């Protein structure tokens, strides 16, 4: 297993990119990626085309509870299958990104189908022009109910959506006035649900049980729309919602806001969003580069990501983010290659994500989750370590077998060489503190050197078992909590 330093760096870079643009890759995938030019790989990942993944029909056949898409956790399970099995992980990653910002939850919508429809909308529009995404969001039935826009009427505005589209979805606090919020809300009057009154009453009382959940649809009601003149961010006109979005989207504040979010999610943890107006960006130059791209490239998210992934600041950001539970769980399952068909393991996986603090499709509030180091507390760390340990400690997983085959030689390997090699396979991870690596090496040494023997012999099986334990211990480290 002789590799040149350049190859190792190339492999490390690809692994880093695929952790951020997706949920990590197996060694076999890395073998292929390593042969390619980095920038070509970025371009091809950002042009996903049609997705292949474990088919929804198969998932539904096995997990019958997912069928009606009634409850949040059931539909979240279907999403987790996508994250783990898709061949276009950037699509799921960008959906997860927007889900954290346009955080819409089951707690209020009371039906999961509308939320799954919203996630699907993120898949279709999340990599395109921001204006279009924002317009789709304003017409999204789950969002309308979530922020009460069905109660936003001509002559009697409800400011919930009008406020959050400015504060949480596009520019951030301090870039508009209370008057702008009112004018913005007026512009979105009439953007409602078909049959909104009926739907909201039904959802609130939950009395549609046992008749199943009704599909929701957007409807524009001209007669409930305030078509009067409005002043918004210094412009005046008889603005409708789409005009407002056009004005928002061309603001420098929007460019910076989106850039900082992209940086936070794809590069390195920022301080929590509420502190942004008062705390400078971690890397102001990076934000400037991304903002310029936004403004010069027609507000296109893919173009921003292209610049981001090819930048030096991205390449130097390895392990600068605490993995969110979805990344953590999907990452463990994907890189260990244990999911090839529907399995009961996914019930536990989706529950454990919740125990770690992230219930997909049900964020705690419209502000989304508190990310970064906020994911870590004395309860969640136990769940994270136990889950990763159990996934990696399974010596039957295809990836453990593959890694063992890659290490196999006629010579027995000592503990230190095994741990070094496993660290490479798991990241490559670098333990900055000697104690960490020493602790694992000492533990492994107790079992003596590792012998490999021929494939499918008892000797090889023992090697697989011992290597799975090394991988599981590395997965329990604090370094593995970040990606």
């Amino acid at each position, binding site marked *: 297993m002789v590799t040149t330093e350049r190859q190792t760096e190339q492999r490390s870079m690809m692994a880093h990119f695929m952790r951020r643009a997706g949920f990590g890759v197996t060694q076999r995938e890395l073998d292929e990626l390593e042969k390619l030019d980095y920038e070509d790989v970025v371009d091809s990942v950002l042009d996903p085309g049609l997705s292949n993944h474990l088919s929804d029909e198969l998932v539904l056949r096995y997990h019958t509870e997912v069928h009606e898409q009634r409850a949040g956790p059931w539909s979240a399970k279907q999403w987790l299958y996508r994250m783990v099995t898709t061949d276009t992980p950037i699509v799921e990653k960008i959906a997860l990104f927007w889900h954290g910002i346009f955080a819409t*939850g*089951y*707690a*209020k919508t*009371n039906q999961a189908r509308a939320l799954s429809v919203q996630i699907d909308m993120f898949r279709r529009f999340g990599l395109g022009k921001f204006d279009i995404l924002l317009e789709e969001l304003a017409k999204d039935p789950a969002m309308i109910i979530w922020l009460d826009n069905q109660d936003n009427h001509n002559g009697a505005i409800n400011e919930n959506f009008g406020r959050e589209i400015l504060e949480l979805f596009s520019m951030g606090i301090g870039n508009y006035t209370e008057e702008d919020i009112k004018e913005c809300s007026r512009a979105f009057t009439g953007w409602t649900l078909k049959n909104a009154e009926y739907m909201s009453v039904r*959802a*609130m*009382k*939950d*009395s549609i*049980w*046992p008749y199943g959940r009704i599909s929701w649809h957007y409807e524009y009601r001209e007669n409930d729309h305030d078509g009067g003149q409005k002043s918004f961010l210094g412009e005046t006109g008889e603005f409708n919602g789409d005009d407002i979005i056009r004005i928002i989207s061309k603001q420098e504040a929007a460019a910076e806001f989106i850039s900082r979010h992209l940086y936070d999610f794809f590069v390195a*943890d920022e301080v929590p969003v509420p502190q942004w107006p008062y705390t400078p960006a971690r890397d102001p130059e990076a934000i400037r580069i991304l903002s310029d791209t936004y403004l010069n490239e027609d507000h296109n998210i893919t173009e921003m990501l292209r610049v981001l992934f090819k930048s030096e600041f991205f390449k130097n950001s390895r392990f600068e983010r*605490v993995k969110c539970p979805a990344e953590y769980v999907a990452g463990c399952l994907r890189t260990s290659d244990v999911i090839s068909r529907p399995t009961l393991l996914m019930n536990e996986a989706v*529950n454990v994500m*919740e*125990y770690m*603090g992230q219930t997909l499709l*049900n964020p*705690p*509030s*419209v*502000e989304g989750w*508190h990310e*970064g*180091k*906020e994911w*870590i*507390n*004395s*309860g*969640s*760390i*136990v*769940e994270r*370590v*136990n889950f990763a*340990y*159990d996934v990696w*400690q399974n010596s039957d997983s295809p990836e453990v077998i593959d890694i063992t085959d890659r290490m196999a030689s006629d010579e027995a390997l000592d503990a230190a060489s095994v741990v070094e090699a496993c660290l490479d396979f798991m990241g490559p991870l670098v333990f*900055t*503190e000697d*104690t*960490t690596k*020493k*602790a*694992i090496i*000492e*533990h492994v040494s*107790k079992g003596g050197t590792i012998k490999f023997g021929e494939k499918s012999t008892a000797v090889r099986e023992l090697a697989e078992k011992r290597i799975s334990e090394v991988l599981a*211990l590395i997965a*329990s*480290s*604090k370094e593995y*909590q*970040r990606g």
Partner: protein
Amino acid sequence: MLETKQKKLVVLQLSGGNDALNTVIPYNDESYYDNRPQVHIDPEKALKLDSELAMNPSMTAIKRLWDEGKVAVINGIGYPEPNRSHFRSMDIWHTAEPTKVLTEGWIARTIRELDPKGENVLGGINFGRGLPRAMASSGVPVASVGDLDTYGLFPSVKNDSDRNDILNVFSQMYGTGAGRDMVSEFLSQTGEDALVGADILSEAPAKYSSSIEYAANPLAKSLRDAARVMFADVGTRFFYTQHGSFDTHGGELPVHSKLWEDVSTAVGDFTDDVREHGYGESTALLIFSEFGRRIKDNGSGTDHGSGGVAFLIGDSVKGGLYGQYPSLKEKDQLNGDLYANNDFRSVYTNILEDWFEVDPVPIVNGSFEKFDIFEN
């Protein structure tokens, strides 16, 4: 016996929306039977509290405690403009805030008040997995114990000596090192907290002995776990657990009855255990649900409603009926639901001010008229 122990609260959440009308039953009210042609309790079997109200027949153990004067029944409890979504309404109870969406829990805020530096890693423990929002807040260390006997890191490693080896590796991996940055240090600290918490908890089962045999249901198991931790005196002030699902849209009578049998026997056993170990006067138990159910039945069950019932149980509790029982008359209803005339934050206020002796206002987000449920 004079107890000098720290006061503790056990919170038992009835998840899914408990049907208050079939829990504390207005058995002499004709309109109860008019609204509940199918889903009502036989008045002959109900356990009478007075000439108007009776407990569900399956609540025998709680009725025994009531007869001893140790059960406070808080009728008509809720909050203004009730929300009938399970999740939202539960969040409202957990954050003590019905209008704004908050993410920080009332218990977490209390723990911070009682232990500002977070010196005790076990100030609050949830028995069950995950963290109820009530206990969640950044920087407040709390634990979630699914099963006390296997709690902690690496429970899947069955061999004790192997597990100890691996815990030892974990301890070194998270052990105090400068770390490469603040996040790394934070991870170290949190990993150590978790390890310390697990270590302390792992000793609790061996210290425990009791003559009480708990009923065989999951809630009884959780409350027994809580008792074992409590008697190990590790400084935990809040014990949290839940039982359910009380979401009885269909087939309510047998389901609801079984659920309350579980709750009642578990609470009875727990109370006996707590008394046997001398923790009776320092322990209070709060039982609540996110909402009650509709006044009219739907033929076999009941749909989401408002106006619930809560209980506060313990040897320091002044037993009796608190709050007016909501009227079932059509003119007094709230869109077909019971009108909640008692705010749940009045109960929290009572607990915070008189039991934990902390300022309730910042924790429950305002001043509320409080009940006077505790002795002294």
